[in-house]
């Protein structure tokens, strides 16, 4: 279930800018460890964002997204104090949801 994401949601005029950092190894399944063994693929497959329960943004990620993924996007119709919630699910069916309020 990993550690908490870092989510920033900031009101900029009529737009809300969302930045997300996730702690995840995003293993491609091609890397070898020090002993020379292949490290199995382990990566976030989907990430979705909602504001006050309404889905605003979704991503399907492959293992080519960098370790500790970063995402940034913005949306309209949000206001200060609204709850932005982000959920990711990885290929081992591990998942995590964190939320923040628009500032």
């Amino acid at each position, binding site marked *: 279930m990993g550690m908490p994401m870092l989510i920033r949601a900031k009101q900029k005029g009529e737009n809300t800018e969302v930045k997300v950092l996730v702690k995840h190894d995003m293993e*491609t399944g091609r890397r070898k460890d020090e002993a020379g063994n292949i490290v199995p693929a382990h990566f976030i497959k*989907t990430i979705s964002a909602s504001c006050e329960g309404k889905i*605003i943004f979704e991503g399907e990620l*492959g293992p080519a997204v960098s370790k500790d993924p970063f995402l940034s*996007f*913005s949306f309209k119709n949000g206001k200060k104090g609204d709850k932005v919630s982000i*959920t990711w699910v990885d290929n081992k069916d591990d998942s995590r949801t964190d939320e923040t309020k628009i500032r």
Partner: protein
Amino acid sequence: MNERRRAIIKSLSVYSMAVATGLMKPLSALAVDWEKKVFELSKLDDVIAALGGNFQVSDGVVLVASEIAENGAVVPISVESKLPNTDKIAILIENNPNPLSARFTIHDGTDPEVKTRVKMAGTSNVHAIARSDGKWFMATKEIKVTLGGCGG
């Protein structure tokens, strides 16, 4: 400040535990499914075909990236579509083992612009594509991946 942060961490842990144990359904249950067969394709042409064929080169798709990356493990990419009714944005890296790196679904009210970071196996063309009114449009840039540091 410290207290606040700690409180956040604690409450988050509780929440995520609830999700993990199935007490609450994660929102992603509603989300698009990860399309395995497209992500696992190894040839760019096959990915293009799988996504519905021809991508038209367009100024309406803006790909921002540096021409040189100091390290292939983290290459910052920004894609913006200026085309109407854009509902999908994707990043394709031609020379990667699997070209499709990420695909995003832009819902109503969300700007068709996304910033992320991808891995590149080596120097390659990077294609940013956006779907507008059901058709795909594309912008391309070559990004050179360089060797760094003293290790060689």
